[in-house]
């Protein structure tokens, strides 16, 4: 009887242990799938909340925190003015947690760079230089940490795309960078089914925009 009970105990532990992981993966997969097609601010907020909950439950995982921050950064694209800073501050709060769980992570540095460049929109004239430089440095670090990651290159392309030509940007500068990013997207292998793998569609879209006059 003792033997059966101890086997039962072991089994239940194994079952419970396994029960968490598939639950985590399933929850993440479901929300990540919704991410790709969501641009609406209110829907992104709901997704951010979902990821925030997963992050609360899975304290040793960096990905839920990463995706929460990712949602908030994407919300800045449908707001303007000083509101953008509020969203960026919140994104930073979560990316900091992700960073403490998984330091020197290329995807995390890419997202940090994205948050910095989002702040430029508040006042491009006076913020362009400061946050442009900050974003650039974070991007470079992201590239160094994972040479196969296409996302820092995609971000760089958008930086050139949105910077006026008189300040060294423009579509001509952006195009080769997007092309390089697209090549990298073709060969990139994400670490898992829930690791960051976004941006290919946007990259393709931007490449088309570069060709327009």
């Amino acid at each position, binding site marked *: 009887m003792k033997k059966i009970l101890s086997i039962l105990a072991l089994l239940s532990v194994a079952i419970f242990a396994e029960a968490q992981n598939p639950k985590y993966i399933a929850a993440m997969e479901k929300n990540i799938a919704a991410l790709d097609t969501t641009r609406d601010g209110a829907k992104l907020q709901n997704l951010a*909340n979902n990821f925030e909950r997963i992050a609360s439950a899975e304290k040793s995982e960096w990905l839920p925190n990463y995706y929460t921050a990712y949602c908030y950064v994407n919300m800045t694209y449908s707001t303007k003015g000083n509101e953008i800073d509020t969203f960026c501050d919140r994104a930073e709060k979560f990316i900091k947690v992700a960073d403490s769980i998984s330091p020197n992570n290329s995807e995390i540095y890419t997202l940090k760079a994205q948050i910095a460049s989002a702040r430029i929109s508040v006042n491009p004239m006076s913020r362009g230089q400061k946050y442009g430089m900050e974003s650039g440095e974070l991007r470079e670090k992201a590239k160094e940490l994972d040479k196969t990651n296409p996302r820092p290159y995609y971000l760089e392309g958008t930086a050139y795309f949105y910077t006026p030509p*008189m300040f060294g940007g423009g579509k001509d500068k952006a195009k080769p960078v997007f092309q390089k990013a697209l090549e990298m997207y073709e060969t990139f292998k994400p670490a898992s089914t829930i690791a960051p793998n976004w941006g290919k569609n946007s990259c393709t879209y931007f490449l088309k925009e570069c060709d327009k006059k």
Partner: protein
Amino acid sequence: MNRILFTFTLILLSFQGVLAQTKVSGKILDQKKQPLPGVNVFIKDTYDGASTGADGTFSFTAADTGDVIIVCSFIGFEQIEKKIKLTSSDFTFNTTMKESLNELKVVTISAGTIEASDEKKTTVLKPLDIVTTAGAQGDIVGALKTLPGAQQVGESEGLFVRGGDGSETKTIIDGMVVNKPFFSAAPDIASRGRFSPFLFKGTVFSTGGYSAQYGQGMSSVLALETQDLPAQTSSTLAISSVGIGGGYNKLWKEKNMSVGFDLNYANLLPYFKLVKQTPEYTRAPQFSGGSLNFRKKTSTTGMLKFYGYFNLSDLGIKTLSIDSTNGFKNLFELNNSDVYTNLTYKERLGEKLLMNIGASYSTNVDNIRTWTDSIRSQSDMTQGRIVFSRGIGKLSMLRIGAEYQYTYDDVKIDGAASGYGYHIRNTIYDNYSAQFVEADIYITQKLVWRAGARGEHSTLEKEYVISPRTSVAYKVGEKSQLSLAYGQFYQKPDRTYLFYPQIPGYNKATHYIANIQRVDDFHTLRAEIYYKKYDNLTNLNDSTNSGYGYAQGLDVFWRDKKTIKGVDYWISYTYLETKRKYQNYPKEVTPPFAAKHTASLVFKKFFEKLNLSSGFTYTYASGRPYYNPNNPEFMSDRTIDYHSLGINGAYLRQIKNCFAVLAFSVTNTIGNEQIFGYRYSYDGKQSAAVTPPAKRFFFVGLFLSFGQNRSKEVIDNNN
């Protein structure tokens, strides 16, 4: 055996699934009882939760029972975490969320203050706005003259604010007074400010009622804050129609230290050969100078900064004498050397305590020569300042500080050239000390009360005076606020009078200001009414402090960055009614530096496709009073109205790692006749208008900035 195991496991699993299935639901509202959609309501450390809908309601099933913590998390609001006990029956959770501290929603003292800074979000101007204002020629004061409160005084340097003369505005850099913020100039020809607007990250132009931290400016204070560490190492080169300059600023790799210098030389001779000037220049104005700066982050919260500036200037001018009938010209030659240094250190001493220490030394020597006299005037100032700021609660702040200024003024007049052989020398020393205490008390996020007092003592004045200062601001709406200010402001009399055997006492002004403003991302509307009472002004008729006066009026400012695409414009209007009896005035009159109506329209447009930024500034002021000895009514004559249209443009281009700006500007483009006043001969029969030395001033310049941007190098290498 297997079947028992299997069943048992099933029971165990279903146990987990079935036993605790509590329904949690409720509604989340804000403090105004409005529903909050998008709030994340969940059981801490679990997956269980939901987002509130458009009506603020939520509903989810919780897997656990017992003691848990429910969390409400929402951007812009204070997070709620509450202990609750879940049983198998439904649980209702309704609550109100409180808005978290948001800089945009917090009220700020705005009466009498116009701030231009990148950091604060509710400011009226950004430093870049100052640089790009047409007609200002890149001079901070020139740009501030387009704001309400400032008068258009074209023949003297300085800021003439709300009926006060130029000496009533003090220029302050990093908390410390600058003795000679303007270049020395020939009489009736205005000079510009010494410091480039690019040196500063923040500008606070106060039109009255300013903080107890500053003093000795009866009308206003221009408080400038120098830049911190640069974003990158850079070198600059400037070539213009008036001179050349260059500089280098190195940022250490660890980004915690920077050292930089710049040198410049200007000579107006080539320009004067092209554009005729009314006065005859025996020596065209020449300026050579430079600066050195050092900045170091001493810790994560500490910063040490040093700025050193030096400048030599020289000019010689001959102007037609009004008293002569044969074309005799008066000679005025000026040679100036100026050194200004500023050292500041700031550090956080505790979580809420900030310390700011500063020291400054400056020396200025003017050597002036006329046909009859040779004058050497030296003015030195050494100062120290310390301020402690302590945060109280979330928003309130207490400031205590002290400052000390030692001034040395020496004037030596030699009449030897004329043969009269008189020598006069006078030296004055003053030890000025001040202490101040001030608190910004936030009664609520929307209501703040600032109360403070400043005590000042001067060994020359031999008197200790205390000036109370207070202001209140209330946020009446999401983007608008109402602000009131009151204060007393003492000032030592003008330097000239300090040389008198009988030194007059402090001059005094009392301010009453009411302001209402509305600021959002694209528009600013500001209206301010003021009353300023002057007392104890210097009266030369009886060498006492029996002078007095008043100034009152209305300032209006409207800025719009959105309505016209790509255009940023602002309109400012000042109504000023002022009279004073001081100096040698026989009675109370409107002084010559005050115009009843002043208005400015500043317009800027960015042509993105052309890489061109362009703008114009149109300024109008009604006629100014001037003294006419033939008129028995003292100071009752008025000049013609003043009109000026300035235009400027800048073409921007980035070539590899060099950022180039080709700038041009013209003042008084359509050549309006501008008369600031009149000078009369001894017998009153001849008069000459005081006008600018030339109708227009043209400027063309090329500015190159070379930065080391490594990410760009990477792209170039990859291609």
